[in-house]
């Protein structure tokens, strides 16, 4: 019946209150399939703080520690320390935060934790804005996006922060991007992250937000795939901050316009804007390719 090599047990329950077609939910589903039951989640303020259920319910079948917005990195450090002190080295501590909680308000705590090389997996599910509070821009919001705080002609005129590079610069043992449209790749990365105990691991997971991006809910995965195929969101891994592996060549790439033009949040862009964004995408891709070429990771089995 199932020919899939993927793990099959779900640790996420039905009945949660995620919007229809929520990519962040799909991300959690995959992540927990990969991580299994010996997992503790630390969730700061974000959509997932709501999706996880309100008292007395929980939509997750693993323990969850909810924590303040800025604190995922720190709270996860504390929880890890507690488990270590109790002699539990088996359980994986996973911080699970949105882009706001990672790129912005939680950046400091996370930077500190990564610099200390805390033994946990930090997952940023990236829906490219503060969705829980009603689609305000974050520093993950891409150039060209309209949000409720970058409305009209004031659409965001600065680039998205490159978060993986930021943590690569910390020489984090493992950092990777992943996409809900590539479950095998994503699950493999979560499993790899789980195996790489003893240090910080950062996973940047692309998670479509149909509500905030103004796209039909059924396009959730399609758009995520387009992001990869247009190289707007490349899939790659970095070990020790220097060895880069590209997981998906996106060859030949689709024009980034194919990705942008299907989303309401980019509807206002002109040909010139598309051109400008394409140039940014190309530039980022070239940089990435150069890094891959510089110190390629030894081929894995």
């Amino acid at each position: 019946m199932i020919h899939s090599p993927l793990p099959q047990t779900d640790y996420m329950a039905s009945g949660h209150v995620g919007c229809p077609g929520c990519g962040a939910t799909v991300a959690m589903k995959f992540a927990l399939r990969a991580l299994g039951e010996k997992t503790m989640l630390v969730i700061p303020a974000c959509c997932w703080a709501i999706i996880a259920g309100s008292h007395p319910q929980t939509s997750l079948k693993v323990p969850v520690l909810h924590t303040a917005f800025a604190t995922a990195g720190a709270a996860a450090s504390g929880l890890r320390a507690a488990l270590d002190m109790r002699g539990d080295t088996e359980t994986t501590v996973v911080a699970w935060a949105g882009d706001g909680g990672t790129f912005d308000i939680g950046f400091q705590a996370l930077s500190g934790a990564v610099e200390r090389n805390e033994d946990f997996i930090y997952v940023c599910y990236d829906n490219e804005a503060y969705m829980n509070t009603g689609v305000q821009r974050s520093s993950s919001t891409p150039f060209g996006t309209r949000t409720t705080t970058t409305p009209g002609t004031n659409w965001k005129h600065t680039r998205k922060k490159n978060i993986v590079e930021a943590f690569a610069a910390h020489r984090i043992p493992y950092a990777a991007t992943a996409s809900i449209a590539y479950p095998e790749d994503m699950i493999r990365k979560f499993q790899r992250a789980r195996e790489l105990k003893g240090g910080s691991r950062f996973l940047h997971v692309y998670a479509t937000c149909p509500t905030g991006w103004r796209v039909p809910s059924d396009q959730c995965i399609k758009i995520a795939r387009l992001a990869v195929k247009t190289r707007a969101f490349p899939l790659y891994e970095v070990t020790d901050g220097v060895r880069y592996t590209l997981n998906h060549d996106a060859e030949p790439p689709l024009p980034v316009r194919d990705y942008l033009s299907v989303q309401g949040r980019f509807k206002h862009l002109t040909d010139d804007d598309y051109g400008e964004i394409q140039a940014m995408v190309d530039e980022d891709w070239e940089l990435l390719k150069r890094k891959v070429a510089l110190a390629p990771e030894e081929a894995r089995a």
Partner: protein
Amino acid sequence: MRISRSNVSTEINKTGSWRFVRPGYDEKTAPCSNACPVGQDIARIEMLMGQGMFPAAWETILRENPFPAVCGRVCFHPCERVCNRGEMDSAVGIHHLERFVGDLAIERAYALPHPFYGDEAETDRRATGGKTVAIGGAGPAGLAAAYFLARLGHTCDIYEADSEPGGVLRWGIPWYRLPEDVLKAEISRIVDMGVKIYCQKPITRDFMARAREQYDAVFLGCGYGRSLPLWIPGEEKVLNGLAYLHDIRGGDNTCTGGRAAVIGGGNTAIDVARSLTRLGVEPILVYRRRRQDMPAFDHEVEMALAEGVQLMPLVAPVRIDGGDGGMVLTLQRMRTTRMETAGGRCRVEPDGDRTETLMVDQVYSAIGAEPGENWLFPPEHQPGQLRMSHCILWEHPDARLPVVFGGDLTTPVKSVTDAVASGKQAAMALDTRFRHGGKAIPERLGACRVGDGTALSMEIYLSGRRKTRNPAIVPFSALNTDYFAPAERQAPPVLSPETRCGSFEEVEGAYGRDAAVQEASRCFNCGICNDCDNCRLFCPEVAIYIDGTRCINLDYCKGCGICVVECPRNAMTLEEEAS
């Protein structure tokens, strides 16, 4: 302590109430199946082949067609012309795959599946009330009729005029396209089912008059045994192409070397020409239209040209002169007009009085054929007739029993597979007639249509799983092609033209096992679930579960539609929720 500590599952929230569209599993019809004269479930067959489940794939073919090894070779595979994969790179090699699994079944002596529609109760029901049917002609139509009738619980006797069964398969198609042992193996399977074949015993008018005594019905699929005349002076010097092919397959070579003209542009003409090259004759194809108008399969024409056959297009024979020492064929030059035939070929007209002559040693005619005897033709519009797409059922007033005309006599396209389709249609019509009366036929057979075409499915007739298949045809645009990477079509080995000319050895080889799996994996499996599990994998609500088959828990499904969009093959549909 009252703190926010929670372990009650959110499953108590029935988020299904949010939904205003509802997803559902809705298997649809692949365009190939729709184009296949016998409506084979190609999408499923290739799915099984791709998984290496060859016996199951073979059984799936056998539900609709008793001749995979034969049809894999000789069918003109209209399926491939409409294959959705063609819009991406190139069509799936459906006929190569069919042949591969057909050959494998022969090699491994696969047993016929039992019950072959997968329903024990149906088998039991059919064990009683079987009728006896006489079948005229052991060609593809007659053999298929016998096969399906036998599978439906009836007893069949086939009466064949020739010395061996097979009809056109045995006598009309050269060895290099259809080796004899392949044909024999597929026929013997039918014989093993209990069908009796009486050779050199044609059905006669006398037989028809007394048929009632022994039989409950008669099927006539006697085929086109007689070539059409050319109606030109010197016609008597012309050799009959069909008869020539028959002779070769009978072991006689009536040919004397030199140069030969072959008149016609169909497959028989090509077969004759290609056979001639193998016997050291230099054939020239004489055809009145252009090459692209030739009814012969393009592939066959190409093979012929590669083997050295010459083509003279846009010429029509007007007379034949001369005697034994050589003949002069006078040809009228033709030119194209803007008009087209119903079949889309361009109409031609004489190009003034321009003629030319061709010196040859023999002339063969292969411009078409007709039934050997007139009474084998179904009479025009008699009362008590039911005209179906591939056959005609007539409550014969003299014989006083139902008679079905099938095969080339009645099929819309004169092809082996259409002949098989007519045999199947006849079997279904007679079975319905026996069990529910003649009036029930249109509706019952109508319910067995595959897609929107004429093909009928025996699996549907027997309430098999395919019955739930939506006849809607999957267009390319409905597929999620993100899941399909371009992949080159596997090519089977082919003998070089030089080797080919020297013998009647089969020209086209078969796929190896790996190539077959690879090629089958190229199939999109349009419209059917191949257990890819995408729906269950991506559902954000964990609302899809497996309980024997995949099910959607509508208590939780919010109707996001992801499952439907991520189904690569359009086997799901989103419908508006009845409020």
